[in-house]
């Protein structure tokens, strides 16, 4: 069984991979994928904060006292936050994709090193 801390380490590694793609890759689409990976890493991080090994869904079943429920259920708040964050991520992803299309129409390339009219 994987421990809690190794999950965090893997998540931070995912974040690092995303940042690497944003910084090092020159392809527009690969940069966009990098941004998406970063967003997912952060969302996963939020979920992990509220996660509990072998926990139950945060719905109080009949005959369960509040104390029992609080002991067993996972934390529902990060899940609500992540839901919002995913929707925002969808918005930025759509904007990025549409900009990539427009950039390709203008520059006829996806290579960021050739999209360089602004400098200085």
């Amino acid at each position, binding site marked *: 069984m994987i421990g809690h801390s190794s999950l965090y380490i893997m998540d931070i590694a995912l*974040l690092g991979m995303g*940042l690497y793609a*944003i910084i090092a890759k020159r392809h*527009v689409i690969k*940069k*966009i994928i990098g*941004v998406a990976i*970063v*967003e997912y890493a*952060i969302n996963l*991080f*939020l979920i992990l*904060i509220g996660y509990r090994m072998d926990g139950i869904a945060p719905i109080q079943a009949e005959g369960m006292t509040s104390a029992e429920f609080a002991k067993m259920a996972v934390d529902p*708040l*990060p899940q609500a*936050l992540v839901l*919002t*964050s995913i929707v*925002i991520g969808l*918005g*930025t992803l759509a*904007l*990025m994709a549409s*900009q*990539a299309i*427009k*950039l390709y129409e*203008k*520059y006829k390339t996806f290579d960021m090193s050739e*999209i*360089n*009219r*602004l400098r*200085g």
Partner: protein
Amino acid sequence: MNHILPLIVAIPLGMAVVTLLLSKAAKRIADFTAFLTTAVCLVLSFVLLGTTKTAYWMGGWYPPFGITLVFDGLTAMLLLIINSVGFLATVYSLSYMEKYTAKPKYYALFLLMVAGMNGVVLTGDLFNMFVFLEIASIASYALVGFGVEHEELEASFKYLILGTVASTMMLLGVGLTYAMTGTVNMADASRMLMSMPATRTMAFAAGAFIMGFSLKSGLVPFHAWLPDAHPSAPAPISAMLSGVLIKALGVYAMARVIFDVLGAQPIYLNIMITLGAISMVVGGFLAIGQWDFKRMLAYSSISQIGYVVIALGLGTHLGFIAGLFHMFNHSSFKSLLFLSSGSIEHSTGTKNLRRLGGLGTKLPVTSSSTAVGALSISGIPPFNGFFSKMLIILACVQAQRWVLAALAAGVSVITLVYFLKAMRYSIFGELPKAQEKIKEVPFPMAFSLITLSVICLGIGIAFLVSPTFGDAILKPAADVLMDGLKNNASSYISTVLGG
């Protein structure tokens, strides 16, 4: 009175949609609704100035369960800046945006941006702050690329990528704060964090927040997007971005989170001072070499935001007053300069200083407003920039940071140098042959330019007559930061949680 608080976010948010819908009937309605909305927001932010600290519980949910809107001195000042520049930029857009085809869409995005910024400065909830920050940011990404030409798209894409990284870093900070305290309410989190010993998690959260907000405010070394994005946007948007957005989303958010939530430890303040000092110097030197007027202004924004961050990082009362005063002044003269550069571009068709010259005789309004802005930002008395820069240098001396005081004084000379260059090549000199038929800008644009010029000169003269003139606005704002520094934000916490 606190029932106004949600309105100042809800009105622009709702009107953004209504503007788009109504413009299907007739395109001109968009002008009218946008003007009316920003005017109402401006009036509301003036009405709120008289209010003391108050909090509004959204939907009647008590904190820490519901979202709280908090109003205090710092928020009052930011609301005033956002909505006054927003109003003047809208008036300016009435004629400037004629050359773009999709004016109603422009206004809709503009109002969304204003709503997002108003939300960021009002909210008392960390995650809610992230959401409003994203509303304002996404609207601004789209607005930077509004021209859909080569340069605009490139700038917008870079801004979008780095802006998203900034937002996710902020979200990481929110997550870590939640992990430590189990709440996202800023006052509640603050109360718990202040009683905890400093841990590595807290330092990680602070690092994530500082990186995110530095990216948003364009501090060196996080500035790469700013000199591309700010000049490429339409002029009123450049004025909003440089004049307001980097302050509300960057400096304000950083100050609020550091002073009122995490607790201002000396190391955070030293990071702010270091980032500010580097930005101030690097931005200033890079601005000298620019020939694109708007690009020069963008680098100058980096440099001036450095001043603000240094003054806030000093952690003294005079430093807070000086920093906030400079933030206020910068929003007036930088938006004036960006609007002036837009007017120059509108009349002559270029923003390249090499192809300009002799505008003083042809464009009296535009060139005098450019001159007022340039003199204010370079710190020539009696314009407002002089007094805030003087206060910043005095605050550095008072805190016995001699090197910072010398740097601030030195960079103000550099500022003077590049603005003299800008004036020499635009207002004075020979009028190029190609531009003998240029005309002065139409009334709405001139109105914004003249109003902002009067504000720049008026604040300076009022300060000369009575140095306590700005205290009504600046003192409560500085007290908020002081409370965070000295009393573990106890007054902020009691405003939100009551009791």
